[in-house]
């Protein structure tokens, strides 16, 4: 389904406004290439004291703790925690299943808007962002950037993308884990209609690579509530074939299956230490993003 929204429509002012206030903080340590506001795994000589260690040959004598030397006559070096910036890797599911939408907004459009807002917020706090849209493979790749002026380019490329293929989320995540050397935040935006084992494997690989992973599970209200009546012929968007049935006859069973899938996905995320965010496209972007960022702010502040 061709997206009918222009690139600027992806930035939701309300969502951005809330996001600016809350910010997107790194929940775990991240590896940046310049000083920022996020904790770095590297400890060095900065503002915030971290620990002492014994002086070794070659250490800069400027970091000697003279007070300790005066009291104990021992040579200790003062170490400080280093803050850094992070790279947010935005992985948007561009498969055909994402083109479903009961209203004007499809899941893909919602994911693109969410990705655009997140990219804007990340760039706003001078962190870096990369964007990848994938289906069976990565279709669109925006290289790492921390330049706010690139946001328009990102949105234009998002808008230009059209979904046609099936999903292989696991391989896309594994590919990212392989390419992203530095630990960052990987944000997955997908309906997760994919091989569940591959998805969990991808999560594990990203986590093993030290990335923090946030999964936005995006579903349409029709998929959540299955409100159809009468006789309906369902035509598969990714999977071939048709199915004629009376939705009322299978609604309960379908919802059980759907909820079980959601539970399994949440479980996989929790087992991998990832955030699982369930997104109903019926809810506004601001509500979804604001709610999650507030939750994250609260968690990171502890």
């Amino acid at each position, binding site marked *: 389904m061709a997206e009918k929204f222009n690139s600027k429509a992806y930035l939701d002012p309300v969502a951005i406004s809330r996001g600016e206030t809350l910010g997107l903080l790194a929940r775990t340590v991240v590896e940046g290439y310049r000083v920022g506001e996020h904790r770095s795994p590297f400890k060095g000589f900065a503002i915030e004291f971290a620990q002492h260690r014994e002086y070794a040959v070659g250490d800069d004598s400027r970091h000697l703790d003279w007070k300790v030397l005066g009291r104990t006559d021992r040579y200790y070096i003062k170490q400080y925690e280093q803050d850094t910036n992070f790279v947010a890797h935005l992985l948007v599911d561009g498969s055909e299943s994402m083109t479903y939408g009961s209203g004007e907004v499809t899941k893909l459009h919602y994911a693109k808007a969410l990705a655009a807002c997140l990219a804007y917020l990340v760039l706003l706090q001078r962190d870096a962002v990369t964007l990848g849209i994938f289906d069976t493979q990565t279709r669109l790749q925006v290289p790492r950037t921390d330049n706010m002026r690139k946001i328009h380019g990102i949105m234009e490329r998002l808008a230009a993308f059209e979904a046609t293929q099936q999903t292989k989320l696991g391989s896309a995540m594994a590919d990212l884990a392989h390419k992203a050397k530095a630990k960052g935040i990987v944000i997955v935006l997908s309906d997760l209609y994919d091989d569940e084992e591959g998805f969990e494997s991808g999560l594990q690989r990203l986590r093993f690579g030290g990335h923090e992973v946030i999964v936005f599970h995006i579903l349409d209200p029709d998929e959540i509530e299955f409100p159809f009546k009468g006789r309906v012929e*369902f035509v598969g968007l990714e999977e071939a074939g048709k199915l004629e049935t009376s939705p009322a006859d*299978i609604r309960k069973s379908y919802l059980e299956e759907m909820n079980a899938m959601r539970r399994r996905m949440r479980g996989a995320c929790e087992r991998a230490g990832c955030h699982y965010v369930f997104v109903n496209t019926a809810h506004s972007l601001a509500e979804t993003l604001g709610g999650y960022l507030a939750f994250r702010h609260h968690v990171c502040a502890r």
Partner: protein
Amino acid sequence: MLFGLLAIGLPVAIHLLSRPQLRQVRWAATRFLMKSVQKNRRRIQAEDILLLLLRCLLVALLVLIFARPAFWSGESGPLIGRGISTAVILLDDSESMGQSDGTQTRFDQARTMIDGILSKLAPGSASALFLFSDRVKPVVPKPTRDFPVLRGALDQAAPTAHGTDLYPGLKQAVDLLKTTTGGRREIFVLTDSQMTAWREMAKIRQLQDENRKDITMHFIVLGEKGEDNLAVTDLQVIGAVAVVNMPLRCAIRVSNWSKSPVQNLPVKLMVDGEAPQDQGIIDRIEPGASKTVNLYVRFPEPGYHSITAGIPGDRLPADNQRSLALLVLKQVRALIVEGSASPDPASRDGFFLSQALVPVPPDQADQYFLKADVEQADRLDGPSLNQYDLVFLSNAGRLDRTAAQNLQQYVRDGGALIVFPGPATDPHFYNTDLNLSDLLPARLEPARNPPAQNKFLAWQSRNYEHPVTALWNDPESGTLGTVRVSKYFPLTLKTGDALPAQVVVNYANGEPAVVEHKVRKGRVFLFSSTATTEWGNLPIDTAFVPLLMRITAYALNGPAGKLNLAPGQPFAFDAGLGYGGKEWSVAGPGEKKRRIGGSIEADGQSAILRYTETDQGGPYQLFIGNETQPRVVFAVQPDPEESNLAQEPASDLAPLLAASDAATQTAAGAGKPAANSRAPGREIWYPLVLLALLLALIETALAHRFSQSK
């Protein structure tokens, strides 16, 4: 009706027809749908099949309910669906069906039984309804499934005054059923089995044998046995001509069809339904015998009247009274035209006629109702004929043209002409004259003597068929067989006329002695011999005076014609041209209020009032417009044989009933099916309705339950 079972296909058809309304959705999460469908397929199919079966069963039940299924009762046990049948119900509506058992008449019993038969006929059956007596009246002429209509017609039916003859009705029913196809064909005959009903037993047996394979006949006999009955079986006027203020003698015959003699039976005679004018007592009537009593009435006013003879009531009220209608005259004027003149009064051609017409001493002649003038034939050319009610021609010779024309016009205007030929009569002239040949009912052949071996030729001595001579069928009234002629004109009856000639009396050898016919409004009697003793003894026979009186009365009935009818005979009355198109009303037997009958039909020459609903016995009064007095009165007289309620012996009917799958019913057992009856039994639609309701509830509950999200 069971064709409705095809409607079972409705749920399937609805399912198929609703398929085009399928909605298509492009869907992402098909994998969950597949799983759900696979998981629920068997259950959904089972639910669908269960609902389809329930709906089909519901439709089938509804069809079955409308078809009104019933159990079949009988030795073979209850069976459903013995197939529809086409029936003809033949109901005896003769007079005897009015016989009551004290609470219910035979006709009412039959009605109840027919109601039972209709309710027990297999659903989808059709039935016609014929009323039969000595005529067949198809009140529901074609088999109908609309039983309420049939029951409505049955409610309107009532016993009539008709006699009974079963065969014509049975034949008509068989002919009707032969035109029908499919299903069983049955005839239900409900009769009181009077002996007269089976008068054509051989034909009935033959009819039954010929149609045994195709048509089942059920004979249902009402009334256990012929019951006792007393009846007025005859009422006749002996005095012949009814005249104002003159006593009129009437003979009333009462028959006793009981098993015991009747004693001191009062008999009353009434005029126009008023209080009895005369009453007599019959001291004793033996079982099976009849007795006649003579009573007198007087009429204060001229015109049409009815006299009614009555006896005390019994269980068949219809024959406890018998009525007779007659025209009461104020005065009768007769003209006797002689062919020849003789100085000796006793030798004159009109002597005996004038004596017979005024049979009273000369000093009482002025008070006598009939005035007779005697004239010569040459006086007929005057315009004075219209003042006479009767004109007698006695031994008249050739008439001149004017006289013949006057006579013709006189008769056409309603006059009565009685012709006695004689030696002076020229048969050739009478047969060829344009005016006279039109008047005479027969050709006059040349006069001749009886065959050589017989010196005289006598009149017939019994079996008189004409109303004028029917009186002499009763031996107590004497006989006409004593009238003898030595010479006569053989009469050859005219044929082809609209109103054919009737023989009043024959000679013993079968040749007509007296004939008559109607000419427009008038009537002409033609004798074959003289009114004098020259060729015969008629003028001096004891029957001469009553014969002339009866001819006078019959001829003077005027435009009304026949006033006393058999049941079902139509009545016609010439009301006069001035009344054409006027409304008339009728008050039938026992009716105190008049009811509108119709309009008088006029065709330019006459205005005829016709009445055809003469099934009930008794007097009928016809009124024109708002007149308070009836314009004409006529009477319907029931068949006297109907009063004999004796039934055909069961032994005589046994072969017929055995061969006809008969259900013999008695009055006591009316309404209950006979042991060997195959009549359909109790209907079972009520439990089916309950079952259908239960099924509908189950279907609704299941459909609601199945439609919940699963």
